[in-house]
């Protein structure tokens, strides 16, 4: 549980500093509640700094890029949307790690940060 505690602490700290306090606190509240491995309401929100990058995940709300398929769940890295998708078995992939499913959106965001090696995500323009 130290993981959740740390995430909660980071979330609160980040929220106090930024504009997303509501999301971060809501995510922490959900994380504290007992829940099954794959809750029907979708995965919990997260907000943390990982390897120097701000990664956030939570329910999507009118994403400006549109067309994402995270089942209403959105992930950002330093504010840029990471295109994510949930597989039928509940695992997740992103446009950065497209062929290697991971268990949670947070693990997915962290994998993307490692893969990016500091590079910024760029919004993809599909012609």
């Amino acid at each position, binding site marked *: 549980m130290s993981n959740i505690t740390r995430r909660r602490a980071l979330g609160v700290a980040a929220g106090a500093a930024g504009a997303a306090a509501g999301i971060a606190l809501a995510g922490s509240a959900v994380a504290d509640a007992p829940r099954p491995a794959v809750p029907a309401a979708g995965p919990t929100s997260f907000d943390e700094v990982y390897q120097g990058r701000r990664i956030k995940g939570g329910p999507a709300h009118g994403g400006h890029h549109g067309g994402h398929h995270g089942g209403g769940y959105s992930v950002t890295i330093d504010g840029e949307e990471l295109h994510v*998708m949930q597989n039928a078995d509940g695992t997740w992939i992103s*446009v950065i790690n497209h*062929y290697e499913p991971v268990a949670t959106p947070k693990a997915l965001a962290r994998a993307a940060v490692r893969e990016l*090696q500091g590079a910024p*995500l760029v919004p993809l323009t*599909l012609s």
Partner: protein
Amino acid sequence: MTVRKNQAALTADEKRRFINALLELKRSGRYDTFVTTHNAFIMSDTDNGDRVGHRSPSFLPWHRRFLIEFEQALQSVDATVALPYWDWTADRTSRSSLWAPDFLGGTGRARDGQVLDGAFARSGNRWTITVRVDGRDYLRRDLGAGGRQLPTRAEVDSVLAMETYDTAPWNSSSDGFRNHLEGWRGVNLHNRVHVWVGGQMGTGVSPNDPVFWMHHAFIDKLWADWQARHPRSPYLPAAGTANVVDLRDTMRPWNDVTPADMLDHTPHYTFDTAA
């Protein structure tokens, strides 16, 4: 007649012509339209929605059609070129001649994954990654990172032994040949190879790495091998399936080709070995 050969058997002249045709498609801008198309399907194919290029029965006919179109583009540059295939069960290390400087170049350097040798290295200035999902505009690879292993011949054979082409729910959770070959389930063939190469090959814009075509040409050959082993196993589903391309439904983006049209590769090309 187009004969697709094992990349390991290409002559120096065949390698040179293949590379030159790739560079010319890149220079003219045609190459990147293929990357864009692929990424659009990767991002829109979903397990519970419309799915055409991936995680669905039409994964194999869709990529067959995609590769034929790409091969025709190469041949418009040099009519002698055919797509080689990479049998990663045989050429399974980063020391393979596939990754030599006279062909695809090698793995990326540790610091940023950048490929430094071969025709696609940034220093050549002929392979800028323009259709991209992050800020990096150079080709990257991380061959066999973390001690990952390519599939073995025995693993391939275990998948070729599967009699049923595909099963409901026709997505990444399906049993059957297609999903085991694609790799969302079981020993994992196709997906694992993307991950083993790393760099752009692990992303939605994987055709940025020319090895994409040689990987998929081998996946395509394995489909032909499977058909030869199971002549009475049809493409499935046959008809009436929501969100999924049935045997005689047309496939986006072409809208004039069906899986039924793609079952026999021999009007388009043959392989250097009998299937």
